[in-house]
């Protein structure tokens, strides 16, 4: 049975698209047929992060409007088997999304895919609502800072009130917390919220902690999901998060400062 996962946050710039790309790629690497859909109509970026922007012909909105078939719009990833991307339109706005249209596309995808990952836009308006409405799982992307935590709290409320599962009185959407841009040095200095602080406020299961890493920006700029960079701490942390999502017991890594040697300290190594 296909599962719909929505990557959402309320706040912008916390790493939803980066996480969607990495998490979706991670699921596909585990052998699950996965499709990542960009719901950020008018501000599409997923295709860039996935490095398939040069192959976009038709998009999600074309399929919603019946102007193209799903298979014409789906882009197959060249690096990972079982991975597909459904880019969105840059020239339209969120009003192009309708519940009926989105449901039609998702129902069709469900027949072929194991996981459908919806990359939500920021905010709690139409685009975000459409992305979370059909969700079975919601991954809440949060940065360890107060505004992000408050917005995550808000979006959790929206999921509990306005999702399809809530409206129909079904089993509630399963919520997972993904803490991104976690900078251990700054947490130690008290400049950032600790994991426990965030968990105390949001009170949902912790799926993963992604350490702040220069590899993320580098990967984004070359159009490669960071999970493919298995040398980077962020890439490894995303792999762990995927494993936890699939029910495996994996210790949280990168939560203790590495023992820094004399030369490291001298060179002020950060990554």
């Amino acid at each position, binding site marked *: 049975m296909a599962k719909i996962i929505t990557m959402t946050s309320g706040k912008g710039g916390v790493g939803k698209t980066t996480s969607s790309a990495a998490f979706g790629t991670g699921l596909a690497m585990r052998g699950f047929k996965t499709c990542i859909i960009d719901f950020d109509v008018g501000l599409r970026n997923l295709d860039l992060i996935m490095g398939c922007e040069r*192959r*976009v012909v038709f998009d999600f909105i074309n399929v919603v409007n019946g102007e193209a078939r799903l298979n014409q719009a789906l882009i197959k990833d060249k690096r990972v088997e079982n991975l597909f991307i459904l880019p969105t339109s*840059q020239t339209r*706005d969120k009003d192009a999304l309708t519940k009926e249209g989105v449901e039609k596309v998702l129902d069709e995808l469900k027949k072929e895919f194991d996981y459908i990952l919806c990359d939500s836009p920021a905010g709690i308006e139409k685009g975000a609502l459409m992305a979370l409405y059909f969700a079975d799982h919601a991954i809440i992307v949060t940065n360890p800072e107060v505004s992000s935590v408050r917005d995550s709290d808000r979006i959790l409320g929206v999921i509990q009130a306005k999702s399809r599962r809530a409206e129909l009185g079904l089993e509630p959407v399963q919520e997972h917390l993904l803490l991104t841009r976690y900078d251990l040095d700054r947490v130690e200095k008290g400049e950032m919220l600790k994991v426990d602080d965030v968990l105390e406020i949001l009170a949902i299961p912790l799926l993963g902690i992604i350490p702040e890493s220069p590899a993320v920006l580098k990967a984004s700029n070359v159009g490669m999901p960071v999970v493919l960079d298995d040398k980077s701490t962020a890439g490894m942390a995303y792999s762990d998060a995927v494993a936890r999502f699939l029910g495996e017991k994996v210790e949280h890594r990168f939560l203790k400062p590495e023992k820094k040697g004399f030369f490291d300290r001298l060179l002020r190594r950060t990554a």
Partner: protein
Amino acid sequence: MSTQVAYRDAPFQLRGANFTMMVLRVSDPRNPNFFPVLSGKIAQAPNFFRNAPVVLDLDDLPAGVPFDFDNFTGLLRNLGMIAIGLQGGTPEQQQAALKAGLAVLPQAKGKAETFDPLAGTGRSPAQGVHNIQAQPEPPAPVPATPAPAPQPEVIVQRTTMIVTEPVRSGRQLYAAGGDLVVVGPVSPGAELVADGSIHVYGALRGRALAGVSGDQTARIFCQSLEAELVSIAGLYRVSDDMDKDIRRRQVQIYLDNGYLHIDPVTV
């Protein structure tokens, strides 16, 4: 954007549109050769005239000559032409036209003074107009090329849309019925659409779709090809499939034998 939503929810859409139509100027409907000659004209290009809408113009009709709209439009229909309206005319003629189910169109301004009935017919002046004397000046029946305008004021000229600012991501420009000229760069995620050709005096980094209504002679010109997608009359190519050696070059893109060509422009 809210108006667009309203449109989408409405059970209909009411929009303006321009059509190119022929005007039939009738000077002597009583001439027994009128319909035979017209029929002969139509036989030269039957596809062009099939179910063609025509607007009647009775300005050349001598005063006092009666005109039976029902009868006349019926005979036109037999020839496959559909009279849809009357241009100008006297108040009486307009009343009669309305009764016969025709629309009344305003008198065209700055009317063309003369019209060469031989234009585009391939007839030489030597052949003259003698054997088509009774002809009520129909437009040239050349189907392949746009008909020369007997009444230019009714015919919409191809219009060019000129944009002199950078076209940002997410913006969509459509030049209906004509060419689109952009003086400035076109960002990734922007979309240029034209019924005619597209000219970009700057880097083309977005999408460009020329000849979207099917004009296979439309072309795309740009000073630096970095486009995400180019298309002419529905044939497209995404940047992934473009040759490396034409990237960032000044190019023209055109169709030849149903194949999309991207050639550097070398002057």
